[in-house]
């Protein structure tokens, strides 16, 4: 079989550039106007990029681990997007400088007079926090290089042993992914309210990252396939897998989100409920109710019929929808710590969202320019192309 992949349309790079520049200018202005506030916006963007980058890496590992065939033709999409993890190492630097703005527990005087924070100090202290962040990013970057190096080598050698090796890496990464993503959630988001704790918080963020990662993979893959950029054209049934996984992960997110809420609601202990109370007071209540509809009810009903999961227009639309829903979710987690009196969203925050999308587009465009859009040497590719679900 011959595969000649087309170059990506120039508009991807152009729009990536425009979004990045506009976003960067707005973000810079936001920092100039109000550093404290901009720090929270920046954290929001950073967590969104973790979701896409690390989530995509997890999807790649997942494909190797379960031996999926259908996704092999599209695996490079997730591989390219997971290159974001390399950027994460650079983008984390402003956050480390802004820790004092973000985290109440970094204030030595506040900790000294607070028995609860004193009790958490062995874990929540600046040096250990930075060390954990470093280790997490290191793990992501190392596995990114391990996976992609083998995958690219296979394009030329077509050696099936490389797949076997990647399967082994995937097994290790599956465990490390769950650990690191949980710690990322606890460190960067849960510790914004250092008195609060929820044992489900790690898996809550984990569920969200998978929704975001599968959505962005679906959006890019379906669009590229419809435009004929892969050099082959798989029939619409492949979209069914994307649609189903988007649907499934989204329901999983709902399940976790609801469980977390219900357990805290039922126990009704002030130490736990205040986190939700903050999100139910003032105008935040509308934002919270919106989360239920935007992240669950509407996508659930739209994606439920089988015909929706095979319709390319609807799949891409819902993929974008779920990406925004994930950003909405992260905003809901992070921002009430800063906007205590009610929900606020302005250009100060919008800039960071634009910047995030710009970075994602630029990274993808850069990678697609350098490497094959299809893993041509993968022994599973043929099976993936002729894969029939039903």
């Amino acid at each position, binding site marked *: 079989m011959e595969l000649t992949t087309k170059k990506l349309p120039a508009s991807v790079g152009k729009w990536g550039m425009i979004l990045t520049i506009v976003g960067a200018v707005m973000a810079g202005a936001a920092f100039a106007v109000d550093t404290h506030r901009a720090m929270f916006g920046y954290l929001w963007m950073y967590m969104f990029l973790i979701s896409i980058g690390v989530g995509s890496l997890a999807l790649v590992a997942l494909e190797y681990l379960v031996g999926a065939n259908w996704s092999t033709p599209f695996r490079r999409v997730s591989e390219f997007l997971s290159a974001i993890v390399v950027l994460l190492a650079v983008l984390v630097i402003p956050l480390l400088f802004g820790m004092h703005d973000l985290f109440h527990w970094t204030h030595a005087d506040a900790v000294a007079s607070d028995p609860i924070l004193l009790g958490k100090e062995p874990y929540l202290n600046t040096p250990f926090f930075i060390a954990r962040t470093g280790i997490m990013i290191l793990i992501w970057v190392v596995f990114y290089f391990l996976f992609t190096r083998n995958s690219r080598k296979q394009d030329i050698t077509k050696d099936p042993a490389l797949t076997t090796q990647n399967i082994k890496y995937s097994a290790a990464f599956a465990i490390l992914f769950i650990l690191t993503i949980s710690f990322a959630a606890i460190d960067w988001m849960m510790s914004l309210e250092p008195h609060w704790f929820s044992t489900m918080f790690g898996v809550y963020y984990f569920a969200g990252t998978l929704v975001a990662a599968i959505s962005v993979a679906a959006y890019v893959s379906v669009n590229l396939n419809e435009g004929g950029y892969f050099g082959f054209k798989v029939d619409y049934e492949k979209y069914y897998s994307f649609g189903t996984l988007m649907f499934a992960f989204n329901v999983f997110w709902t399940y976790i989100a*609801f469980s977390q*809420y*219900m357990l805290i*609601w*039922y126990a*009704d202990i002030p130490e736990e409920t205040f986190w939700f109370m903050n999100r139910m007071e003032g105008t935040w209540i509308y934002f919270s109710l919106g989360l239920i509809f935007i992240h669950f009810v509407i996508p659930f009903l739209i994606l*439920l*019929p*089988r*015909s929706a999961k095979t319709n390319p227009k609807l799949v891409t639309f819902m993929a974008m929808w779920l990406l925004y829903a994930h950003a909405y979710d992260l905003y809901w987690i992070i921002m009430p710590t800063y906007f205590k009196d009610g929900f606020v969203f302005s250009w100060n925050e919008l800039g960071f969202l634009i910047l995030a999308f710009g970075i994602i587009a630029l990274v993808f465009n850069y990678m697609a320019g350098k490497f094959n859009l299809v893993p041509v040497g993968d022994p599973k590719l043929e099976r993936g192309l002729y894969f*029939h*679900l*039903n």
Partner: protein
Amino acid sequence: MINKILNFFKEYNARKDEEPRSGKLYAISALFNTPNEIMNAATEVADKGYRRFDTFTPYPVHRLDQAMGITKPLVGPIAFAGGMLGCFLTLLMIWWMSDADYPNIIGGKPFFSLPPAIPITFEGTVLLTGIATVIGMLVLLNKLPKINNPLNDTEFMKHVSSDKFGIVIGANDKQFSESEIRSLFESMGAHDIQNIYYRESNLTNKTPIFDSKFIATLIAVAGLTALISYFTLNVVLYDVVPFDWMRHQEKINSQSPSDFFQNKSGMRMPVEGTVARGFMPYEYKGMPDSSVKQLANPLPADSKILERGQDRYNVFCSPCHGYFGDGDGRLNEQFPKPPSLHNNKVINWTDGNLYHVLTNGQNVMPSYESQISRDDRWAIVHYIRALQRAKNAKEQDLPK
């Protein structure tokens, strides 16, 4: 023995095979050797405009449904409707049980609230989705009460369930024409083209499901199963641990001893200096009567209060003092007889004094401070006053 049973079934099947067919045509069938052939056949038959046809394969052949032109399977909407119904009915059930029929405060929560109802609603939704799907499929699509398809027990059926791919076009198709269909099948390379006729039993409207013998057997089996499970769970296994309906529990009943506490008493005293919720300690405890003479009854003497007072008096006081305060209670002989409450001394007491006696006790009469709430004690005082007035009623007390 086993051979005998096998032989029985063999003979039974043989008899079924021989069941006479009528002269009425049901369908024309054809067999193919490969899945590709059946795909092409299905596409072509659908393209020719036939609607009443079906395909049979020994294993699922992917996308055969599309080749047959089935674009909108009915099962999806049926399942969705079942799910919505389940969601609605479960919510209704929970609301009915916990708010309307048997409201119970649990954990200080509202009688009905959404969060705890959602897990059960989810279960109900899934349950009814499943049931609706299966029943909808069996009844609507497989025409359930009819269980005897003319295709059963034919050579065709034997082949398509082991090694061949088959297609049948029904005689009830609008375009049905025997010669045309035969030549169509032949042109597609089919072999073994057969006419399938109705059985005699297919033509009568009787369905074996409504046969009285069958229904009687069903009821008998259900009854027997119920009896056996009842007997095993409620009689044989009644005292065996996991089946004992939680009759035996590790808990301390009131008034029973416990080795856990040092004084071996299962019941605990309240912490020193604490007071139960809603309890008001009596400030004149143990003081002489003279100190409380000035205490006035804070409650109005209306009919509601008097009824409450009567109720409490009958419960707590009447055993010793009698229903009318004459000192002739039901505990006669078992406890020192109390004096009548209609003697001049008590009649002339202030309300405060009466209240003091039943709150504080007097000689052998115990204190009722912890048994009767403060308001109820004042209500009893009102009621005793009413009793006293009734015993010594004057002309002007009578209603005009």
